[in-house]
């Protein structure tokens, strides 16, 4: 394929007479002020809220990490005590996994999916609002533990028996166990929404093999969530039952099993790694083609790899438990499956390289982050293959080598794409370009800081430094490297702050982005930046994988079809005027029926408040609070169901 660049974006959406646009505006915009804030079901607002909230948690997790590094910078230091150190590394992990990485990707997904698919909202807009409120409340729930002086302190995985009531009597781990089950609701509900949206809300003509790769990655992620998150909910709730009610699931003396807990936790825990990583690769698969000026190489191979990774991810969890003493045959199986993951990952990797190789690369900030991602992921992938090998794993398990490995894959290979995605998509969200200069500074500081922080950890691990120790003695040969790591972490933190500064600066002073600042190919670039509330005045009709590069007039067929069918009619301006959007189906993705986009409502907020009260009730063991929560949640949900037939067809 040759390089294509036909910016047809500005012509893609028709120019409307003022009064028509005003009518649409009236039909879609939320009530002003506080009532509108709590009632909004607009996927774009919810997406942005997800991202902003998640970045607040990212900031908190960063501060925790800096405290950890300050404590470890020198031997026998006393910046924080051992208990505080346990709390810090636990909450750092919990925050990064549950409250930053997962929700920030959900935020991008929420904002971008309807725009990329060419529709006016998600399949379940109210459920979308519900899942955001649950995320926010569960985050506040877990962080409220600081107010009671008892944040979780049992590691982010909370292994039994240490976390059983007898050994951890405080509320610390109740916050953890309930919080994990709590946020699981948000993740699950979000995944249901993503799956149905990707399958049923694609613009007519956008067959599965024309779907943008980011949507594929969100779809793969959502399926992993559906099949894995119930199991971590199970693990944490059974632990909470043990703690709260005195059941005996994980107590060996009464026939329970500590190993069962590890199985349950990691049955979710390993797919979770890919739940974070796969959408990040989806972002990379959007950024690299745009700035290489050519389509993604091996589209079908990359999509297949995403699906393959999601399947294989369910067969590798035991590699977190190689040191627990299991039959050799079982361990060999899981070791082989873990090695197998390298194949689909490698396929993606070579697809990205070959896209750049055959393209004409523009070195913008998003592209730099993508390249940084490639280098970091390469290292993280290689150490991943190393620790999948049993004898090697036995040598390095519970050492800093593992810390190095998972920060390369979870920080490097997830956070770098997220930052690249910020530079790439924030202009769409705010209508302002970020500063390239500041962006490049930010990238280089993050990249250098990252490697100075995490690369020496490999060496420290091989030198025998164990994980989760709050201090170490001088003269073990670890002093210099630890100091270097602590300095690196500061540089990394400053690099991320530069991006924050960039975002603030660009909000006011950034150059106007226009509809399609990057000459990109996917549908989100066919609408103005920021997009109108209704996304598309006319729902585009898609004829290829790269609608904006193929020079198609996206609304040409409208007149030919008008009046034939409700669903087809809603593709046109009539849909934007009546808050409807087509649902599509069949292998060739034809309009099937009509989705009435629900109006703003308090129901999701009320229902989420009820759920929150249930968890608070369980935490403080107050039946009254729990009862009120059940009642509130039930009222919200019943009322919601009561109106179903009015809103949905």
């Amino acid at each position, binding site marked *: 394929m040759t390089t294509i660049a036909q910016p047809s974006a500005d012509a893609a959406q028709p120019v409307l007479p003022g009064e028509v646009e005003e009518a649409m505006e009236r039909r879609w915009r939320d009530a002003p002020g506080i009532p509108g804030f709590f009632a909004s079901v607009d996927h774009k607002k919810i997406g942005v809220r997800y991202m902003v909230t998640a970045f607040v948690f990212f900031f908190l997790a960063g501060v925790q990490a800096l405290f950890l590094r300050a404590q470890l910078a020198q031997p026998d230091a006393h910046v924080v005590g051992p208990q505080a150190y346990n709390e810090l590394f636990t909450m750092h992990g919990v925050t990064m996994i549950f409250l930053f990485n997962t929700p920030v990707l959900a935020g991008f997904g929420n904002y971008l999916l309807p725009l990329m698919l060419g529709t006016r909202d998600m399949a379940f807009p109210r459920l979308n609002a519900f899942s955001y409120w649950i995320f926010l409340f569960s985050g506040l729930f877990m962080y409220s533990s600081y107010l009671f002086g008892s944040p979780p302190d049992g590691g982010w995985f909370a292994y039994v028996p240490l976390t059983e009531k007898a050994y951890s009597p405080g509320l610390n781990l109740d916050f953890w166990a309930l919080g994990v089950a709590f946020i699981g609701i948000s993740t699950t509900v979000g995944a249901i929404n993503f799956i149905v949206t990707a399958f049923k809300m694609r613009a007519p003509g956008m067959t599965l093999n024309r779907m943008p790769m980011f949507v594929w990655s969100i779809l793969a992620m959502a399926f992993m969530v559906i099949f894995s998150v119930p199991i971590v909910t199970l693990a944490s709730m059974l632990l909470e039952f043990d703690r709260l009610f005195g*059941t005996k699931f994980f107590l060996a003396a*009464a026939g*329970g099993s500590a190993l069962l807990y590890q199985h349950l936790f990691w049955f979710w825990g390993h797919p979770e790694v890919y739940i974070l990583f796969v959408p990040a690769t989806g972002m990379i698969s959007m950024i690299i083609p745009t700035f290489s000026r050519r389509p993604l190489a091996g589209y079908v191979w990359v999509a297949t790899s995403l699906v393959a990774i999601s399947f294989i991810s369910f067969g590798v969890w035991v590699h977190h438990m190689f040191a627990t003493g299991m039959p050799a045959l079982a361990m060999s199986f899981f070791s082989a499956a873990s090695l197998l993951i390298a194949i689909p990952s490698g396929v993606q990797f070579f697809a990205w390289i070959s896209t750049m190789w055959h393209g004409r690369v523009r070195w913008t900030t998003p592209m730099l982050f993508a390249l940084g991602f490639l280098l970091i992921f390469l290292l993280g992938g290689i150490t991943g293959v190393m620790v999948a090998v049993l004898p090697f794993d036995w040598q390095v398990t519970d050492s800093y080598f593992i810390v190095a490995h998972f920060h390369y894959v979870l920080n490097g290979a997830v956070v770098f794409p997220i930052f690249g995605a910020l530079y790439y998509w924030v202009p769409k969200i705010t209508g302002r370009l970020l500063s390239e200069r500041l962006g490049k500074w930010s990238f280089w500081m993050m990249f250098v800081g990252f490697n100075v922080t995490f690369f020496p950890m490999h060496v420290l691990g091989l030198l025998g430094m164990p994980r989760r120790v709050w201090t170490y003695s001088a003269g073990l040969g670890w002093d210099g490297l630890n100091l270097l790591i602590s300095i690196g972490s500061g540089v990394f933190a400053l690099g991320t702050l530069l991006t924050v500064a960039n975002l603030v600066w660009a909000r006011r002073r950034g150059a106007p982005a226009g509809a399609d600042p990057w000459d990109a190919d996917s549908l989100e670039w066919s609408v103005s930046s920021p997009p109108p509330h209704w996304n598309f005045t006319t729902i585009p009709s898609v004829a290829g994988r790269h609608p904006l590069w193929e020079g198609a007039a996206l609304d040409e067929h409208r007149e*030919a079809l008008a009046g034939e069918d409700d669903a087809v009619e809603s593709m046109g301006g009539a849909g934007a005027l009546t808050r409807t959007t087509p649902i599509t189906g069949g292998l060739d*993705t*034809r309009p099937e*029926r009509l989705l009435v986009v629900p109006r703003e409502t308090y129901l999701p907020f009320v229902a989420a408040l009820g759920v929150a009260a249930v968890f608070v009730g369980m935490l403080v063991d107050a039946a009254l609070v729990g009862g009120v929560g059940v009642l509130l949640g039930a009222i919200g949900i019943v009322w919601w169901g009561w109106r179903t*037939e009015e809103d949905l*067809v």
Partner: protein
Amino acid sequence: MTALPVPVQGSTVAVVPPQGSPGRPVGWWGMLVLIATEAVLFLGLLSSYFFLRAQAREWPLGGIKPPELTRISIFTVVLLASSVPLFWGEHAIARGRMRQLRVALLLSFVLGLAFIVNQGVEYRDLTFGWRDNAYASAFYVITGLHGLHVVVGLLMNLVVQLKAWKNRLSAERHLTVKLFSLYWHFVDVVWIFVFSSLYLSAHLR
């Protein structure tokens, strides 16, 4: 349907005529995915049960007798039977027969209620509590979670009944009936697995 230009690759727009059949509403798909994730929850619980059992020297633990079968078998039939009226009711509302739907919902409700009342009675008669050992914990939590699903299903039934009485449903618009019966069938099918694992298999040596 009028003839329309054929979809083509490249620069021409693909024109997509509407599908003949309207397909299923998004709510139905959403419920299906929700059921899938719920099924995984039960799968995890039953796997945990067998994991604990596999490493135990005796089962049930602590001299507890395997659960008694006669009564629960009868009520298993009762629960499974509660799905039948819903098929009938769904069929009825699709033809706009509101009265038939009301009867069907009521019938299903009574059968479901009988099942859950029996479960309460069974709990009362059990000789062990859920703190006794891991078997007891697993028994109570698995049957309890299923019972919770039955209770939620009964509440959903009440809401749908109320809608039927208030004539908020019609042959064209009755999504809640479909969603509710899908959920209820799932609760019934899951019971087959719970029953086989906790009751039947406990008698296998």
